[in-house]
């Protein structure tokens, strides 16, 4: 019996082989519970062992970074199954512990207030029916995705690479809703608030703001569906802001209040949290001081190998298709390049279907390995704005915006 059965079936098989089920009188429900608690994953950094839980609502197996407020990471193998991340495997990240667990759509209202001619209080069906539907595929990535891989290490949610996902979002353009309310001249920002609150009265409400022009760009949207279904509660049911190309901190979940501001927002979550060094790639030297800090914003390109894992054995002289995903950040993917010689030479991978410039894009690369031994496969994305993934990792104290060239080391035998 392996120390950490990965599935209920494996657990039951292990128990069965030892004759445990009859003697312990285990019922399937209890067996599943035990399996859920003993499955773990070792993320590739120190102190990286995490539980894999199967008991979060509307979710399949997820890596538990934190139970409350939930931080659930998508197990990386999910990204090899397609460019759209299933809703029940989509990562989860909440800041404040009072996350409503019951949402009554009949009572729910989306308010639009502040510097507008006509404040609105919209029912869900008014959001769905009264504005032109809008659909867009976009990557939602936590600002701190891959933070656990920072060196030197930094404090925070110690994510592997699975604090990201790609979905087909459906909803309405924020611009259309703002136009209905009639933004007054002199307005500068739009502030968003969800239904979650802190435990302590002193804890600042989670509020995020966008510049008015950005909010009205016709792409920022209020989503009521992802991948053709209503959102899972933990991903923001019933409404979530979608800010294509920007880090997920702006994608406010359980969105229920939109406030048009005459002054720049200086609330905690804009002025103190989610700040990055105002340097290329948000990159500084550890310990460097006197750096101007600015709110995080646009994403940078990334690419991953999904069909191979570190240490995997590959037969020599067999044709092999290496596969993965890439995204351009705030613009589309122009090229994905693969190197088999430690970055000296790069060859172009084949790109899969284009689901829009904000989406994951599949790539494939056919090769065969003749020489037995260790073989590193490296991948690098270049977006349509000409931005390429760097060959050395960035560093900042927040653990934000990691996008170094990725690699997998396999064994050719």
């Amino acid at each position, binding site marked *: 019996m392996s120390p950490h059965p990965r599935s209920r079936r494996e657990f039951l098989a292990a128990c069965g082989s030892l004759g445990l089920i009859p003697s312990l009188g285990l019922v399937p429900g209890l067996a599943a*519970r035990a399996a859920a*608690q*003993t499955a*773990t994953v070792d993320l590739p950094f*120190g*102190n990286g*062992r995490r*539980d894999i*839980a199967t*008991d*979060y*609502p*509307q979710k399949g197996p997820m890596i*538990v*970074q*934190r*139970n*409350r*407020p939930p*931080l659930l990471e998508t197990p990386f193998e999910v990204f090899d199954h397609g460019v759209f991340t299933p809703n029940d495997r989509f990562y989860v990240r909440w800041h*404040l*512990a009072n*996350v409503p*667990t*019951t*949402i*009554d*759509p*009949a009572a729910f209202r989306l308010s639009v207030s502040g510097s507008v001619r006509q404040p609105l209080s919209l029912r*869900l*069906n*008014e959001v*769905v*029916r*009264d504005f*032109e*539907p809008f*659909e867009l595929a976009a990557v939602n990535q936590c600002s701190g995705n891959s933070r656990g891989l920072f060196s030197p*290490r*930094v*404090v925070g949610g*110690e994510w592997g690479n699975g604090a990201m996902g790609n979905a087909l979002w*459906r909803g309405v353009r924020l611009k259309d809703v703002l136009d209905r309310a009639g933004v007054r001249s002199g307005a500068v920002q739009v502030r968003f608030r969800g239904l979650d609150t*802190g*435990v*302590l*009265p*002193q*804890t*600042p409400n989670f509020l995020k703001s966008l510049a008015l022009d950005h909010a009205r760009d016709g792409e920022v949207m209020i989503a*009521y*569906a992802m991948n*053709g*279904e*209503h959102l899972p*509660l933990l991903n923001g*049911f*019933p409404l979530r802001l979608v800010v294509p190309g920007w880090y997920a901190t702006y994608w406010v979940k359980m969105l229920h209040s939109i406030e048009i501001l005459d002054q720049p927002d200086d609330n905690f979550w804009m002025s*103190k*949290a989610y700040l990055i060094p105002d340097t290329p790639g948000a990159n500084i030297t550890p310990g460097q001081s006197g750096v101007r800090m600015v709110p995080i914003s646009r994403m940078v390109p990334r690419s991953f190998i999904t069909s191979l894992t570190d240490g995997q054995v590959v037969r020599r002289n067999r044709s092999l298709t290496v596969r993965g995903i890439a995204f351009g950040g705030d613009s589309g993917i122009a090229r994905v390049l693969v190197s088999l010689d430690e970055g000296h030479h790069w060859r172009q991978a084949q790109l899969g279907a284009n689901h829009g410039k904000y989406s994951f894009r599949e790539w494939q690369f056919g090769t065969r390995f003749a020489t037995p031994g260790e073989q590193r496969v490296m991948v690098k994305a270049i977006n349509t704005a000409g931005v390429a993934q760097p060959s050395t990792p960035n560093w900042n104290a927040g653990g934000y915006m990691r996008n170094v060239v990725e690699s997998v080391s396999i064994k050719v035998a």
Partner: protein
Amino acid sequence: MDSRTARTQRARLSLRIGAVVGSTAAVLLGIAPHLRAATPVARSASVPAEPRHAASSRVADRLDLWSTVSVDLPVSTALFPAGEGASIANSTCLTCHSVEMVLAQPPRTAAQWTETINKMHSAYGAPLPAEQIGALALYLSQIAGKP
């Protein structure tokens, strides 16, 4: 991690979602691509009533079948590992977040933990008497990041 896991008791999952949501989801999987290209209907400022968008309303109608969603989140009852300072950690840190967040951190010095504790106090309102900060920081530097 295993001992920590053993201390964690998750409440039994109970998920109650209206049947309508499930059936709606099944229907929605088949959203036709041509419906995405709905032509906007010009809105006149003098007509307050909201026009329906003919080409898209059939899709929208399927998504406007909303049912109450009610879930139970698993509850971690795990406490900090025994040691001097554990009771301070249990009575303050766990007010706003569960223990895994702390235990999953990399090794950090007491001075680094002091920075974090001060942030929890000043930014989020963690109730912690000043005279306990030193003991808590020392305790955290000894238990967190050491699986």
